[in-house]
């Protein structure tokens, strides 16, 4: 039964059948071959209850928030402002790449959108100023992955929904590791550029008046982030309510910049529906598969198998982490998450690990999947914005940052408080 599920998953995925559909097909197969009673009669109810959710509305709203912001051109202003603040470090403008990605992560819940936004504004600079294209584009691809870690994160909402954990707690748990990861990326950049100055450009010095002028451009985004996350943290608003307020503020920012038009709003809505529907088909498929796996006893069988191996909790965790790294080479973030959550999370909680903590750990692992070839969406997004050079430049440039992520995984295992301290204050 386990072999059937695992091999079925890999074969159907490699046939390039849509991921959401693969999950449905597996559920049909397990129901047909292994279930003692027909489960598919309940399918309709499962589909209804997995999409009729006031919690999940937060997904389209956070996507919409990002879509509106991207369309009002704040990306370039943010980049210029952050350039003034951080580019004096060894490595110059590369730090602005990481910082801008971090900033956008804090407003957009998607990594690909973050990478795309930063890549569009940053890449023209690399050629003009003679940066090493590898590290420069690697920093954008890696920085972009922070989008799913720093709240609001759509992936954390999906994780919370599928594992029935608190989304405010998950958001807070992701905040410190996300910011630390951003600092780690900058540290890696600075160290590499001190060892080999030809990798980066010269440090860029801006006057204090330039810096303060930049603050005016940063203020709206920082304010937006503070209101959205602050109101969740203070318990004033649910994530859905905070997202609604965020959308309203984003539209106000766009209005103030004179970017609102019917076409702009409609395009944002289309983009939102495209992303949301893509996510929801996978989420509903995972929900259905989850229901079938539990009812047919696959999850229990897998737990028994793992226990039979006689590994301790830490060794089992290591096996699971290794599994994610390997699968991450081939499968994309959200698909990787939802296909494995029904199987892995019950095992993890049974081993005595915290669900919220593991959510953050899993996010770092799937962030790595975004920048590991051959399937790493951010690599392609950054490459398509560069318009020259080879994709292998981006891949090489990502290596130091991927290692930084591994370091963060180790840090989280040794110090679970990095993730768990903030939610415990809630």
């Amino acid at each position: 039964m386990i072999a059937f599920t695992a091999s079925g998953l890999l074969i159907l995925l490699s046939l390039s059948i849509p991921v959401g559909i693969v999950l449905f097909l597996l559920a049909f197969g397990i129901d047909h071959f292994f279930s003692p009673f027909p489960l598919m009669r309940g399918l309709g109810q499962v589909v209804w209850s997995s999409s009729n959710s006031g919690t999940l509305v937060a997904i389209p709203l956070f996507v919409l928030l990002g879509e509106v912001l991207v369309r009002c051109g704040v990306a370039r202003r943010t980049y210029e402002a952050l350039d003034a603040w951080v580019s004096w470090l060894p490595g110059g403008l590369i730090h602005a790449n990481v910082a801008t990605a971090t900033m956008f992560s804090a407003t957009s819940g998607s990594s690909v959108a973050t990478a795309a936004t930063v890549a569009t504004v940053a890449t023209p600079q690399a050629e003009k100023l003679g940066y090493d294209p590898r590290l420069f584009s690697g920093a954008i691809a890696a920085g972009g992955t922070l989008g799913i870690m720093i709240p609001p994160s759509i992936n954390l909402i999906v994780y919370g929904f599928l594992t029935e954990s608190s989304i405010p707690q998950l958001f807070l748990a992701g905040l410190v590791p996300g910011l630390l990861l951003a600092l780690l990326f900058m540290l890696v950049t600075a160290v590499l550029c001190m060892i080999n100055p030809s990798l980066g450009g010269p440090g860029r010095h801006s006057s204090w008046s330039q810096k303060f002028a930049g603050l005016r451009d940063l203020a709206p985004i920082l304010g937006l982030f503070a209101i959205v996350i602050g109101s969740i943290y203070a318990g004033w608003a649910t994530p859905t309510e905070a997202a609604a307020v965020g959308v309203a503020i984003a539209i106000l920012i766009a209005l103030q910049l004179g970017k609102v038009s019917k076409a702009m709003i409609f395009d944002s809505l289309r983009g939102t529906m495209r992303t949301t529907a893509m996510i929801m088909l996978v989420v509903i498929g995972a929900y259905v598969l989850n229901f079938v796996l539990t009812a047919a006893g696959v999850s229990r069988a897998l737990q028994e198998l793992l226990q039979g191996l006689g590994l301790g909790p830490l060794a089992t965790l290591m096996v699971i982490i290794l599994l994610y790294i390997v699968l991450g080479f081939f499968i994309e973030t959200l698909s990787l998450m939802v296909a494995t959550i029904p199987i892995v999370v019950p095992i993890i909680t049974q081993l005595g690990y915290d669900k919220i903590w593991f959510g953050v750990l899993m996010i770092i692992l799937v962030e790595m999947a975004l920048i590991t070839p051959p399937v790493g969406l951010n690599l392609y997004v950054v490459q398509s914005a560069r318009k020259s050079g080879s994709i292998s430049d981006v891949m090489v440039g990502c290596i130091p940052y991927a290692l930084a992520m591994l370091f963060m995984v180790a840090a989280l295992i040794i110090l679970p408080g990095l993730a768990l301290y903030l939610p415990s204050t809630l």
Partner: protein
Amino acid sequence: MTKLIDRLRRINDGLAVVAGLALLACVAFTIIEIIMRQLGASLGGTDEISGYVMAIATSWGICYALTALAHVRIDLLRTRLVPAGRAVLDLIAMLSLTATALVIAYRTWPVLSKSLQTGARSNTPLETPLWLPQTLWWIGWVWFAVSALLLSAAVLMYLLQGQNKKIDAIAGVRSEG
């Protein structure tokens, strides 16, 4: 056939915009609810209505994502094939999707028909008659099956005619998210 698929695209595009506008309405309701709460009153039921909008927007949006080629596919093997091989994989993908869509449309009907028969209302202060949101939701899934059937027919026809480029245009893989 090309004309028919074009029309399908335009219809699904319209569905997406309408669903998106419904989401914007949810934003407005939610903000009014937050303000009212500060004033000590409450609209009530915002969360419940948002849930219905989400269910409906999902089933409608899934149709749009289908014609906009937005459903994620792992194309590791696919990109390494010659165009004819890709076209065959696109056909397999579209047929599996169509079969699944038909099963979903068939299996979701009892949810709606039961609400219609019993006149079930939600267990909340709003006491929403459930058939209301469920009808719009179910129509989305039926339309998903219809769209998938039309696309499958088109892919099959183009495959027989050897028009691989057209298959890629209506059922290929777009990598940007």
